[in-house]
């Protein structure tokens, strides 16, 4: 396929990829990095696509996977650098955590979920897609989506609360 098709692809889906990445990572810079990686990888294999790819589905899946991988890496990095940003004061902040901080906590929890559960959770709760649509995107049954979503929510609720209590 020609380069202009690739440019059209970016035009059509840049916002989708950036939004998903931002919602998962809570950081515009990291979201842009994910965007860059996702599209660059596609470009490098451009000659292998034959025009039948379901780009919407493909890009959702790749973005979720990559963003979660980024989240995993930054957890490792943070662990290496030891403590979270607000720990310096020695106390937990009184006011509710800002969304960005919450997001980072949540991203950390997401990164520990089985891949499929994390995908379903992001597409459903962060992207607001319906079960039917998610089933189509992931190539599974709606029942599978429902089961994964339930498990993900149950586990995330527990882990997020533990993580906030740390």
């Amino acid at each position: 396929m020609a380069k202009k098709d690739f440019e059209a692809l970016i035009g059509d889906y840049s916002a989708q990829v950036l939004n998903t990445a931002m919602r998962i990572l809570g950081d515009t810079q990291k979201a842009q990095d994910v965007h860059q990686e996702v599209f660059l990888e596609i470009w490098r294999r451009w000659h292998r696509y034959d025009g039948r790819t379901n780009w919407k589905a493909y890009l959702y899946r790749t973005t979720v996977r990559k963003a979660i991988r980024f989240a995993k890496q930054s957890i490792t990095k943070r662990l290496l650098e030891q403590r979270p940003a607000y720990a310096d004061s020695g106390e937990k902040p009184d006011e509710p955590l800002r969304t960005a901080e919450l997001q980072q906590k949540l991203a950390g929890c997401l990164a520990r979920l089985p891949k499929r559960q994390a995908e379903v959770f992001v597409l459903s709760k962060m992207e607001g897609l319906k079960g039917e649509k998610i089933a189509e995107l992931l190539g599974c049954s709606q029942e599978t989506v429902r089961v994964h979503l339930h498990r993900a929510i149950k586990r995330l609720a527990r882990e997020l609360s533990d993580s906030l209590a740390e």
Partner: protein
Amino acid sequence: MNKHERINELLVDFALGDLSQQQEAEVKTHLAECHQCSTEMKRLEELLECTERIRELSADKRMCESAKQAILETVEAEEMEPVRRTHINVKHLWSAVVNSKMAKLAAAAVIIIAILIGINHLGGSIDGATVAFAQIKENMEKMAWMHVTVEGAGEKLEAWFSFERRVMVSKRVPGEIRYHDGLKQTVQIYDPVANTITVSYTTADALAGMGRSALDFPKSILKLFDEAGQKIIQETGKYEGKDSKIYKMSGFFGGMDMRVEMIVDIDKNVLLFINQKAFDETGTLKIEANGYFDYPENGPNDIYQAGAPPDAQVKIIDDRDPEFLEAIKPYRAARENLPQCVVVETEADERGAIRTICVVYNDSINERFERIETNVTSDSIPSDESFQSLLTWASDIGANSIWAQLYDGEYIYRARRDYEDFWSIKEKEYSPKRNHRSYNGGLADRGWPEHVMYKGKVIENNYSTENGLICIEKQNEPLYEGKKLRYPAEKTLYYIDPQRGYMCVRKEQFQHHLPPYEDPVDVEDLDFAPDDIPAEPYSITEVVEFGQTDAGQWYPKRLQQWSRKCFDQGYGWETSEETKTITLYLETNLDFPDGIFDPNGLVPTGAKIRKEGEKTSFEKHFEQAIAIVDSREHWPEPRELVSRYWQARSAKDYDEMAILWPGSASWSHRHVENEKPVEYVFGETRKAGDNRVIVPYAARSYYEEHGTYNLKMWLHNNRSTKGRYYIFSGN
């Protein structure tokens, strides 16, 4: 399930607003009185509230523009510099070569040496795209010995492999020699500088990991070029005067123009030669390497035959636990002194159905083993307790198939009778120790299993101390294929009873489950670490009734085997548990029939023998079906295909069934004839590995009642030249 548990299950639906009014009211009442549930509810609400805020976030226009700009600039820069473009695809292999400290060596030499000396740089999975080379690999594995010489940039390396003998030898010329002996479980390393040979013990099977990677090497190269979008040209020509197939490919990798040529023997379909050249950007030949393959009848029997001088000083490193070696001595002695006997062994499930019966004849040297696959009930076992009637019962049982094996202390002879009543005879296999058994059963497996004697350690736990047993722990490392995981780590505990002739009275196995039927798995997709061992066993085998021979030798009379299996029900994993009862009937005072240990008597006289290369009717049907699969103008998608299969089955259209499910012609008539048609509904197709998909389905009535699919069909496209999916398994 009590009320609390039931309501707790509904909490997520409640939080999502998916409950009926009545259920909602019920949950609310419960929340008011249950602290645990109300805490959990609060957490769920927090999470959902958080995601609601997140959902409102979106990238602004400026951010989108700058991101687009950034990617287009990078793409442009890469177009100016085409070399970088393929670089990412091949970073595992070629960057390892080009950036390696050994870069002065020829590329091929580096890779092959890297594999042989154990630096496994080969990454990425190998898919079914290169079917031809999969067959070549299989043929190479069957050779008695494979000998490889690699030369390039003034370096030379030689290697020998024998999959039959579990031996892998590598030799730098001049330089270090390594001799891995899988049967003796030793590694010998000759160091030419110090003139020493170090012998160490290992349980790792070099051939399972490195040896197979080496055989995968040609396939990896093909895949590499294929993935980078490069053409692979196949020609026929002459190599050393013989007709040969030649595969040629070229492409830019790691800043070099690489050209590879592989030559394959047409008759034997094995690799003969690899040539690799690398040119820099000015077109100058920088490195060249040649790999020569031959397949001799014999190879080096020890490190000296591989070239180590007889005067080298030998150092033995036995890092096995001394406590283990001490504990294993009486076990080993007991195992070597098993009584001369005949054993009839039955394996029954919970409903008393016997699927397998083993008959094992043992004297101090020989073993004759027959595994009979059948389907009878426990109450058909003769009750007069005479061993002879039991033997007659086993031999008249009406077997679906029989596996027969003879071991004479040096060679294993095998034969099999298939369901078409044809016998096929396998080549004898060299096995100087008894640790190469392929079937389970008999005393050498049930009471004194071989594996206890491998490297392990003595541990103590509650069970061993309470019951006065010696507990031996054995661990297996995870097994990888490239970067993917084939098996996670495994632990086995063997409990040995010193009071009962050092018999192994209990075995516990621990290992995480991997998705069934899947190809090797990406480690990232797992929710456990590959080297993690779960706390709960997945299988426990225990002797529940003991027997003693007239001479006082203990033996396991009855064993119970409990195991938990994981299977995919189409909507997630389910576990199932099963318990088997294994009963051993043993007789020590029986005259063995004449010629019972004679390899020529392994197959009954007058039996129908399948000639080598002759196809079973399954194989014939299968090939015919695949030809039709590929020749049809249109071919349905997997879900449609499965639906058509069931339509054909309802209509008893055997011809169409045999095409949609290749090979099924050999059984479908018998099984389907009296079947009543069922209306099925089908779920979405999903991937289950590189070339596999699953189509979940259920009877309409089941689906309407449960809302889930309880059955599934497995499809793959391995044999279709057009990549068309067809059914290969189902339930």
